[in-house]
């Protein structure tokens, strides 16, 4: 199942959710598709709105790639019965040095992505609130394992939300 996101195309938004329901009677029907679509929009909508203010095409492309992976994962989670409304929304902000911050926030953790013009400089982090600081993790997004990293971070958020 592939879900590509074009945030300025309402039809594609609908198709994303419709693809979720096709052949899945549990989530079949237009209401299920509408609900899934609304949940996805709730989670990534604010990020995409912030992204629309980014003028750097490289950063825009990187963030769109991230969102596409997110949506694929969200659809898979929904199909497997996960309740998406537990997931916090992704927030975006343009940093003063021109980088773009995408952050998933909870009271107990934060998952962040900092996108820079050169994809090799883009990075991810996971910060957990706790007595020790050993849980903090970070790494580059400019390598071949990017998809695996994103999936593991999304899985982390899904299991801790």
């Amino acid at each position, binding site marked *: 199942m592939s879900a590509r996101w074009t945030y300025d195309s309402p039809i594609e938004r609908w198709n994303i959710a419709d693809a979720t329901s096709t052949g899945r009677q549990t989530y079949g029907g237009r209401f299920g598709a509408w609900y899934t679509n609304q949940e996805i929009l709730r989670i990534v909508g604010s990020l995409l709105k912030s992204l629309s203010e980014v003028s750097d095409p490289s950063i825009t492309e990187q963030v769109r790639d991230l969102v596409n992976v997110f949506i694929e994962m969200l659809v898979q989670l929904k199909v497997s019965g996960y309740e998406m409304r537990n997931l*916090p*929304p992704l*927030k975006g*902000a343009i*940093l*003063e*040095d021109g980088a773009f*911050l995408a*952050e998933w*926030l*909870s*009271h107990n*953790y*934060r998952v*962040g992505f*900092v996108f820079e013009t050169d994809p090799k*400089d883009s*990075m991810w*982090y996971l*910060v*957990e*609130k706790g007595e020790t*600081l050993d849980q*903090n993790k*970070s790494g580059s997004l400019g390598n071949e394992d990017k998809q695996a990293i994103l999936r593991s971070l999304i899985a982390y958020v899904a299991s801790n939300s």
Partner: protein
Amino acid sequence: MWPLTPKMSYPDTFLRGLSTDDCVSDGIVSSAAFQLHFEPHLLRNGCAASSVGWEDDGSVIDVMMRQEKDGEPQFKAGLARFQRESIDRLMKSPAFARVLSYDREPLVENPYHGNLLVSSTATKTQKRLLPGVIATQYSEIIPRLDG
């Protein structure tokens, strides 16, 4: 010489102003609340400085809430309170040893003013990670009462 933190007394808590809505998301302080500037002309003793207000007494809240920028309240999203101990803990951690500190820098208009300091010698990863690590340590958000 590191640490830069001068040997002077500090209260248990400090406040960080939240200037835009990007600084808060669903009641949680975002990493965007701690943007660090490493441009040479902005460094303070070789460090990027994030302004804070040391909570020596309750007046610091009024002082910071009254601060204006371009004729409008500077901290539109309120103030975030931090326990100093949480920063002390970060300063002792191997991940951030010798890159994080704080000081006092009293101003005429704000005698409570100080800074969290991040050394320009920090690695790029540390510079990107620290805003999130610091923001995670907040204990509460003090909203504006005037809207």
